[in-house]
């Protein structure tokens, strides 16, 4: 599984306001997926609610400036994701107490736990590379993020 298989390019957001709350961030990223045509408008509120409920079970701010808010939802038939970048970092209640600069928001079908885990594996394996992690946090445009993802998909940051 590669970024191009699940990240929706047109839904990437690179200028997340550092003062947004966790709920506002989740809603903004979901709205971006709706605008890009990856989620249905009528399911927006339900998906946002499910994502927030998941956060209440325990934060998905997994440390090193990264968060992976996610949920399963019956309205999607394949894994879809977007990326949010906040150069200054947002407060996402991360496990290590640090602010979060890179968010990967994932919505999975209800019956494909393997794809969900493979996507998380792929994301975290790329983030092990400090160059990839640093460039991602510094990306200012959708095209900059996408170029980075393409480079990652071509094996530039892993061996």
């Amino acid at each position, binding site marked *: 599984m590669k970024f191009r298989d699940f990240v929706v390019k047109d839904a990437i957001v690179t200028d997340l306001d550092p003062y947004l709350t966790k709920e506002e961030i989740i809603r903004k990223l979901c709205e971006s997926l709706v605008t890009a045509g990856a989620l249905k408008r009528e399911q927006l509120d339900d998906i946002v609610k499910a994502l927030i*409920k998941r956060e209440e*079970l325990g934060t998905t701010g*997994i*440390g090193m400036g990264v968060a992976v808010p996610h949920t399963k939802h019956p309205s999607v038939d394949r894994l879809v994701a977007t990326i949010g970048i906040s150069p200054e970092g947002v407060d996402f209640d991360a496990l290590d107490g640090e602010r979060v600069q890179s968010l990967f928001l994932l919505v999975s079908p209800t019956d494909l736990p*393997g794809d969900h885990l493979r996507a998380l*594996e792929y994301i*975290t394996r790329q983030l092990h590379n400090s160059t990839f992690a640093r460039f991602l946090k510094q990306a200012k445009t959708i095209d900059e993020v996408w170029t980075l993802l393409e480079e990652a998909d071509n094996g530039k940051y892993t061996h």
Partner: protein
Amino acid sequence: MSLTSGNSAVKRRWVTIRNRAGLHTRAATLVRETVLKHRSRVFLIKPENNGECLDGAPRADATSVIEMLSLCALEGTPLVLEAEGEDADRVLDELQNLVNCKFWEDDFAPESEEANHA
């Protein structure tokens, strides 16, 4: 199964991930929380070649959710829990129990919101 390596301070247990969602974010967070309650250093190792070889096998610091997720431990994946420290047996007991209880998912709470939002 419990084995002690040549270095008496390092202890290992072989387990198999049994919950349907695998070692996902919340499960890894539970592992982290368990490890942080103890003093031992703990790693999760994903053995290669049917468990014969641990040298060079992917390993994750059990206090790092990011490293644990990068193991991609799906249902059925064998893992080696490795602990070094004065309370190694105790932390391994708790981790083994956590894995064997499917992180309190599936059979333990099949209809719960928690299982649905792994």
